[in-house]
């Protein structure tokens, strides 16, 4: 009887014909991003450790040690941060050259996979509430650089509020 049911199930699989709604494949193709994600070292490390079923504390320790020993990630992150602080100060005093330098930092961060947004072309350096640049931190919060050089760390909700204020100012 079990064999009979197995045969019937296989036949059921062969006969199931329901077609997807028309246009679904085109919709999915439109959603293909311009930049498909390429392998990322940090994420792969996490996956390997998860696959090995190591405890979370051990996994966290292994990731931190790996980043410090092999990646130099903290050094690089601090480097960006210092670069940006210096350039923002320059941006406030001497606009044109520092704007292009900041744009270069943006390019550098973006090409390294950091989720960064740069408003340099639109931000008004005289208005301290204008966001110059923001990027996502590994913990999920955002680092925001204002046009007066102030650098703050905010949550996603706070960032949305700041962006809304900025867009409202642009409209006025």
């Amino acid at each position: 009887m079990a064999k009979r049911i197995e045969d019937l199930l296989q036949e059921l699989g062969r006969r199931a014909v329901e077609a997807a709604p028309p246009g679904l494949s085109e919709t999915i193709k439109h959603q293909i991003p311009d930049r498909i994600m390429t392998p990322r070292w940090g994420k792969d490390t996490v996956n390997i450790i998860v696959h090995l079923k190591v405890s979370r504390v051990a996994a966290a320790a292994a990731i931190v040690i790996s980043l410090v020993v092999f990646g130099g990630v903290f050094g690089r992150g601090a480097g960006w941060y210092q670069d940006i602080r210096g350039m923002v100060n320059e941006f406030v005093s001497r606009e044109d050259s520092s704007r292009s330098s900041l744009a270069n930092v943006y390019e550098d961060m973006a090409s390294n996979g950091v989720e960064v947004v740069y408003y340099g072309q639109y931000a008004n350096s005289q208005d301290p509430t204008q966001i110059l640049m923001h990027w996502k931190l590994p913990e999920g919060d955002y680092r925001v650089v204002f046009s007066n050089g102030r650098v703050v760390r905010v949550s996603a909700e706070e960032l949305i509020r700041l962006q809304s204020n900025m867009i409202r100012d642009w409209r006025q």
Partner: protein
Amino acid sequence: MSLETQDSTEQNSGLRHLIDVQDSRQSAAQQGQAEWLTHLQSGDRAAAEKLVDQYYQRIYLYMRQLGHNRQASEDLTQEVFMKAWYHLGQLRNGSTLSGWLFRIAHNVSCQHWRRRGRREAAVGEGIELRAEDNMGQEIREDRVAYTEQLERLQLAVEGLSLKLRQTIVLHYLQGFPISAAARVAGIREGTFKSRLNQALEALRRKTDTYQGS
């Protein structure tokens, strides 16, 4: 050399040739998939579109077989591919594209059930079954009975718990071998086999009940 020995030698060489042909086809397919994967991971849009063309229909059907209604299946199929673009970096050479994509689909489906419960189950939206073509008059009546039997079995599958249903869908309806199906479901092979046996036993009981009624 006797005639019998000569026949056996010819059969062996024929068999060897068949195995060689099969091996070379398999290796060409693996090489093709490896190249495809390389193109995908380098951000080649054409390779991504090929992935959509090849799998969107199967993923949609998988969602329907897992009990999602048509609208939800459409949305979830889109979600599967969105996640696929994001997680493409985690796909390794040697792992199959279909196994990887179905693993994402499995997770997306589970998340959906967790978020929404089974309120949106496809009640009254059974999957259509294709009728057999080119039947002779003498076997047509048998075929009608056979189709009814299939429909009863489909109802029984729909009545299974989610975990048991997943095993039936992956192994029998989608045709994954047990080891690959277990990987898609994210469980050990032994656990998968045990669930499969439970599911078959439940189906046997249910179809007995239908036949009795």
